[in-house]
């Protein structure tokens, strides 16, 4: 029963409905709608970069939007991009361009989730030969051009020159030139011993660490690379080979470090490291003298410790394999792909082609402190670059020894095995030989199962 002054249920619902209708008809419009209503095609570009890296990409997007009046690209920052993109493509609502990680390309490509780019790229004048040879392994999958390099990451050994100067006598005595950094695994070992400091001047392994020369797990993002400096391979001719003697040697070498320093001392020491991306990062604070990192490390150095005197050398190999003309290059790049079901592949490619103009490639690489993915690089690029190792990082992408993780969709699961195995070995749980044999068996089983499933589906096995 309603009394005078009460609002009836019907009146309340009517008022709410009228309000909703008004909002739908005259409420605020998103930027996307506003621009689309001007007759432009709106493309969504999902990218993982934030901060300086994101701002640099946004500038290129803005430049593209200003360069023509038919397409408007929206730069949308997306974390966990490989998973969200997958769900978006699956749900039939993909973006128009995605900035993936290189290791995502095989699974996306085999699932036909991204479009082959051969014809599209050719129609915009892009040629595979314009890119550094090592990068072709990432750009091409199963005989098709599937991804375009956004920024080129290659890994190298960063070393602290100030620490090397401080330990110059010990380094010289062990055959390491303190001005050049370690050139071989043997020299890296010697430099590690010379630059490591134990509390109270105690011998290695006999006390808490004050400084470590080199720790494979700092930052430890690439658990799978350590067999390569010894001549091993994760996979060869479609077969898992990470249990081969040469590959195992790499992990015996990894384990020798915590064995020598004392596993507990190392773990307690590492617990005091700040995460990457902060001024407390171990290389920045001088807690480790050397680390394997990508070119982006220079951005961190410039931002937090601009006075840090550092050098960059290729990841060393064992003496018998070391060859300055063929340095070891681990490729870890970002790529652009066009997802299946996007609004207008031609328009997406037009945007990608714009990003691939040499001046844009170099502008982005400069901001990211990375090398150029292109074969032809301008001298002004090197002159302006804020990474001392840019020439090396760029050259590594063209090295005959440039390598990528196995380009198979099963790699993600296999790699998790590498991550947990290296952590076990690092904590002296288990021996490298049997551990890598298990990992090889695991990898082969994943490859075999995937091949069987593809055969069952009537798909071609690459």
């Amino acid at each position: 029963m309603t009394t005078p002054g009460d609002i009836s249920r019907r009146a309340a619902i009517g008022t709410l409905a009228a309000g909703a209708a008004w909002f739908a008809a005259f409420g605020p419009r998103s930027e996307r709608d506003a621009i689309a209503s001007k007759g432009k095609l709106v493309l969504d570009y999902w990218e993982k970069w934030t901060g300086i890296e994101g701002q640099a990409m946004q500038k290129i997007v803005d430049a593209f939007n200003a360069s023509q009046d038919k397409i408007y690209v929206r730069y949308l920052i997306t974390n966990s991009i490989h998973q969200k993109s997958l769900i978006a493509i699956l749900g039939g609502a993909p973006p128009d361009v995605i900035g993936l990680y290189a290791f995502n390309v095989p699974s996306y490509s085999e699932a036909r989730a991204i479009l082959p780019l051969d014809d599209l790229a050719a129609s915009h004048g892009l040629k595979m030969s314009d890119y550094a040879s090592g990068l072709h392994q990432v750009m091409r999958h199963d005989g098709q051009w599937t991804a375009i390099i956004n920024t080129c990451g290659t890994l190298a050994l960063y070393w602290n020159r100030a620490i090397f100067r401080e330990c110059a006598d010990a380094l010289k005595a062990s055959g390491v030139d303190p001005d050049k950094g370690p050139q071989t695994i043997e020299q890296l070992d010697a430099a590690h011993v010379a630059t490591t400091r134990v509390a109270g001047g105690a011998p290695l392994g006999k006390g808490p660490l004050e400084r470590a020369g080199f720790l494979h797990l700092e930052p430890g993002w690439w658990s799978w690379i350590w067999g390569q400096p010894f001549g091993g391979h994760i996979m060869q001719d479609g077969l898992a080979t990470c249990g081969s003697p040469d590959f195992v040697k790499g992990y015996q070498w990894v384990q020798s470090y915590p064995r020598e320093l004392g596993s507990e001392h190392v773990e307690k020491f590492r617990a005091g490291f700040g995460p990457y991306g902060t001024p407390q990062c171990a290389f920045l604070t001088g807690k480790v003298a050397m680390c394997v990192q990508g070119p982006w490390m220079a951005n961190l150095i410039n931002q937090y410790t601009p006075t840090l005197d550092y050098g960059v050398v290729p990841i060393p190999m064992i003496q018998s394999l070391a060859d300055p003309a063929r340095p070891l290059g681990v490729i870890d790049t970002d790529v652009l792909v066009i997802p299946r079901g996007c609004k207008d592949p031609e328009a997406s490619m037009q945007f990608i082609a714009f990003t691939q103009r040499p001046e844009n490639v170099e502008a982005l690489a400069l901001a990211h402190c990375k090398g150029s993915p292109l074969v032809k690089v301008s001298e002004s690029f090197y002159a302006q670059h804020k990474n001392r190792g840019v020439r090396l990082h760029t050259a590594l992408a063209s090295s005959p020894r440039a390598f990528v993780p196995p380009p198979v969709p099963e790699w993600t699961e296999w790699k998790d095995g590498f991550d947990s195995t290296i952590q076990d070995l690092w904590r002296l749980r288990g021996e490298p030989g049997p551990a890598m044999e298990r990992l090889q068996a695991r990898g082969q089983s994943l490859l075999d199962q995937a091949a069987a499933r593809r055969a069952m589906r009537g798909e071609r096995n690459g």
Partner: protein
Amino acid sequence: MSARTRNLISGLLWTSPWLVGFAVFLFLPLAMSLWYSFTDYPLLKPPVYIGMENYTGLLHDDKFWLVVKNTLVYSAFAIPLSTLVSLVVAAWLATPGLRARGFFLGAVFLPTLVPMMAAAMVWLWLFNAENGLINVLLKFVGVSGPIWLNDARWSIPALVLTGLWGVGQMVVVYVAAINEVPAALYEAATLDGMGPVRRFQHVTLPLITPAVLFNVITLTIGSLQIFVMPYVLFRNEQGQRDSGNMYNLLLYDNAFVYQKFGYASAMAWVQLLVVLALTGIMMFASKRLVHYRGAA
């Protein structure tokens, strides 16, 4: 149309939002996941029937057995310990004449309101072997703290410890149950010469067994499905650590990282059946162990 039919239609109409929601968001996905568990379904390709292959695959998957072991060991410690701690705290909070009871009850319950992710980040720092508060306190009393998160032997104990963070909800249920125990029974027990411990053992505990059953069942389900805490504590940029890998983490990996949706669905159904079986066993055991007041 009879009044009964009108009533039925009216009832169905009023409950239809829930019924539709249940059908679309729960029953249908449940049925679909059962179907997917018999298929090879890499998300971006259509599912293909493969019979029991996913289930037999689980039997031969070392990683599956590792997470089963980890999850069971965690549950075996977390459930009794959380139950014990929450009972002790509840008994203390229900003590007649306790000052500032509301404050303490609030303090115990408050952590359960903190988002699990935020709590996990706090624990991450608490467990830091070098600068973490726990090891600093241990050092203060002359004990060298362990490397909580990087030493395989300490992974499960660390997780169990974090489980105590969320006992507030159980404590509230227990306090409510204890407050329902008739005061006359305590008076009779006191007259019979029972001290506080025996009163709790012989009067309180039997009368709050329905609350214990409820808490243990929900705790069991929660423990077997633990996700956020091990995800934050044992996964970082260096990848995952086996010692802290749990069932739901592997399930998530299979579904959304490795794109093996069929395999993940099979894991989910195995988990559901195990939870149902455990709940059934507990319900069966409760017939003898749980006392409902007023029941014959």
